[in-house]
């Protein structure tokens, strides 16, 4: 008998997979973008079900909010919403894509179904360690405290990367520098 959480998980998993398939198969790029937003919302719900509340909110804010608005903005800037031509490749490519997808699912399923995977990887890992950390630091602190102590160098590198990306995007998209 599946619990309520599992029923919700299956519902949102079906939503995510269906939206992703619709995203790949729609001809109109605007429709593709909207289906991708649906996928992001379903994955955010699954993050919440898995206990990562803050990641779920960030997923909605950053992915479904910021990044997809950027995509839709570029689609409408380039005026691709109408007068598009079908850009899905022919039958041979479709069979190749389906084969590649099945191969990836099979390989990953073989790795993920390994029996030794679910046991905790360290002394300070494991579900009850995570629960203790959540009780001690809260939903945001459980991510923020390691981010600003252990991972301060990658955080600074990410800041540099974002700065470079902003400058690069302006340089690339401007007509005359």
């Amino acid at each position, binding site marked *: 008998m599946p619990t309520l959480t599992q029923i919700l998980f299956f519902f949102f998993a079906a939503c995510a997979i269906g939206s992703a398939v619709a995203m*790949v198969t729609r001809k109109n790029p605007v429709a593709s973008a909207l289906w991708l937003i649906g996928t992001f919302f379903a994955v955010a719900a*699954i993050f919440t079900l898995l206990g*990562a509340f803050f*990641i779920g909110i960030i997923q909605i804010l950053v992915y479904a909010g910021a*990044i997809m608005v950027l995509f839709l903005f570029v689609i409408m*800037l380039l005026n691709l919403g109408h007068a598009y031509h079908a*850009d899905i490749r022919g039958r041979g490519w479709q069979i190749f*894509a389906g084969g590649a997808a099945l191969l990836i699912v099979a390989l990953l399923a073989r790795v993920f179904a390994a029996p030794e995977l*679910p046991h905790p990887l*360290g002394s300070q890992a494991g579900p009850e360690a995570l629960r203790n950390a959540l009780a001690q630091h809260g939903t945001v602190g459980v991510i923020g405290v390691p981010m600003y102590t252990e991972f301060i160098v990658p955080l600074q590198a990410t800041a540099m990367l974002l700065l470079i990306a902003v400058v690069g995007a302006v340089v690339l998209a401007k007509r005359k520098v």
Partner: protein
Amino acid sequence: MEAIPLQYSLGLSAILFAIGVAGVIVRRNAIVMFMCIELMLNAVNLAFVALSPYAGVQGQVFVFFVIAVAAAEAAVGLAIIISVFRHKESVDMADFSLLRW
């Protein structure tokens, strides 16, 4: 959070990643290919979050970095698409064969 078996969420992550790969192969519109890449990044994020109760909370910190890199990639990639569109009046990958022999 233990109510969902690990295999289910990892399997969903694998399926979403495979759909993204199939989309990159089957589409020719550069923007839709970018969206498929975002889908693949999101599938990897799902695997990180699903494994974080077992491998430590570092998985959720990594998801943050992946989201930041995805945002940077989207900004630069869309800027490249805009500048290519200005030259070719197209976002179809079949028209971008300049570097292909």
